[in-house]
């Protein structure tokens, strides 16, 4: 959307698009007119049963709806609202706060590249550029901070799988692996990485033996 700005950069006050201020806010959706897929309904109801207050299930429910619809579309939010007996407005307010809940349609494959201090020190900006170069329309390549894997910096989260340390040369392999449905950069997956602390690596977990001494 084109945002009107003054020459010094501030936004020109006013509405970006016409808004009907007399309209009533949307109420809780009517189950009779809002079809919800059975598996999604079951999943949301399972989440709601875990908390003393059903609203606590908002985040897991929205994430489930996103998995189902690809993004937090108005339809997805409406379905969650219908099952949780909340207004779509309430859920929209929640969804817009969190980075992982997408407000726009997005390509299916998520590639989050961490560009925070530790990763940037080790060349994350180059990796990001290489990934953007290598990726096609089916990839949602974006920066994401901080992914909490500074030990494998620079790193990326590919559909939730942490890989690193990445080099620019890995970008093409990464894209090819995802497209072929193979495990992504298997040798560089975080799950396979041993602990850095060498003493911990060699010691045996035996608290009971120690207690007996």
């Amino acid at each position, binding site marked *: 959307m084109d945002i009107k700005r003054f020459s010094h950069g501030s936004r020109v006050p006013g509405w970006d698009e016409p808004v009907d201020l007399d309209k009533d806010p949307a109420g809780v959706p009517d189950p009779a007119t809002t079809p919800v897929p059975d598996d999604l309904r079951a999943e949301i109801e399972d989440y709601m049963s875990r908390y003393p207050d059903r609203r606590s299930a*908002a985040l897991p429910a929205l994430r489930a709806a996103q998995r189902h619809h690809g993004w937090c579309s108005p339809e997805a939010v409406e379905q969650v609202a219908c099952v949780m007996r909340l207004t779509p407005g309430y859920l929209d307010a929640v969804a817009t706060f969190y980075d992982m809940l997408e407000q726009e349609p997005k390509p299916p494959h998520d590639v989050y590249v961490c*560009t925070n201090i530790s990763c940037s020190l080790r060349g994350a900006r180059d990796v990001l550029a290489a990934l953007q170069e290598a990726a096609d329309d089916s990839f949602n390549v974006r920066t994401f901070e901080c992914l909490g*894997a500074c030990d494998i910096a620079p790193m990326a989260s590919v559909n939730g799988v942490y890989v690193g340390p990445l080099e620019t040369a890995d970008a093409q392999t990464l894209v090819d692996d995802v497209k072929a449905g193979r495990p992504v950069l298997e040798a560089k997956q975080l799950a396979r990485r041993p602990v*850095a602390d060498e003493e911990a690596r060699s010691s045996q977990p035996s608290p*009971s033996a120690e207690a007996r001494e």
Partner: protein
Amino acid sequence: VKLLFKGIDEPGLNTLDVYRRHGGYESLRRAMAMEPDAIVADIDASGLRGRGGAGFQMGKKAAFIPRGAMDKYLVCNADESEPGAFKDRELMQKNPHQLIEGIAIAARATGCNRAFIYIRGEYDYVADILDAAVEEAKQAGLLDHVVLWVHRGAGAYICGEETALLDSLEGKRGNPRLKPPFPANQGLYQGPTLINNVETLSTVPHIIRMTGAEYAKLGVENSSGTKVVSVSGDVQRPGNYEIELGIPSRELVYGLAGGPPEGRKVKLWFPGGSSSPVLTAEHLDLPYDFDSMAKAGSMLGSGSIIVVDDSNRVLDVALWTARFYTHESCGKCTPCREGTNWTTKMLERIERGEATPMDLEVMAGVQEQIIGNCLCVLGDSMAMPIGSMIKHFREEFESHMEQRRLEPVATLSDTQGPLPTGVHS
């Protein structure tokens, strides 16, 4: 001494069988036979300070939880999003039962009947491991006294702040709350709530096993026990290291993590994640514990060391830091929302070569206006490192300005470049 990391790479340690074979859930069995007050007293005697950042004594926190029959909540803060910190990830991924045992003991000690692990959304694969482990523990009847669920966030740094985390867990936007009332009195669903970090709770089984008095003998005065330290940035062996608190910082940076690459020197380092004021190479000889770091004008925080070597410009580090906090500010308090935003803009102006030395004064002044003026410490988390960078490296900022002033035409930042549209940072 290895406690939390003992044999952490043992294959299958994330399953109940292997964990039990190595003496797991023995502490819980012992704790169930103890009086709740005795458990709290034991934790208090250990002097265990919170490992999430604030360093508040866990025993004191647990003692604040009111007694009596009512709904009480225990929340494990696994929303580890501090840049530089990745210790909780490794602890949960490789030894989830250690955390679950800690939660079960803490719930027994404080009488909490409902517990949640709030894990950040990005750690989905870790959450899957936790889910499986919780299910196993439930099946084995180890969690009969507390209802435990893993709750996944959806990507917001601010939800690591305890009151914002509670709001998020209640299904709202993650905005921090005014304190007091503190969560121990009015937390989740307005009930008494104990919130502790993953590493703190994971330490609890070890305290019960070896008794608080024995645990207190580890480490140094006021900083007892062991700590998992995440070392990252310009070091040769980045990763998690479990150390006894109080060892020299040099031993950590150079001895364990291998120091900066060949031929490089340490220029600055963050001792406690990106929110701690930076220290320089001369501070490397200080012991690594809560009090020494505080005395040097910084803090131990979550125990995450980021090393920056002399091939980097301070300005870049400042920009990365400021941009992160600008993006993550929740916008509730004005000093933080505007202060982080303007700091980024002013740093970008320095980068473009349009700044004057007076801007440094203004920027330092902005940082002072943020500290202590907001509901939570997110603003302070940017203000403290940026303020300390200006303090320690004023000359470098000034020489950069002078250099850019002499250049004929100032262009848009060339090293960083504007971020592509459609991405956030």
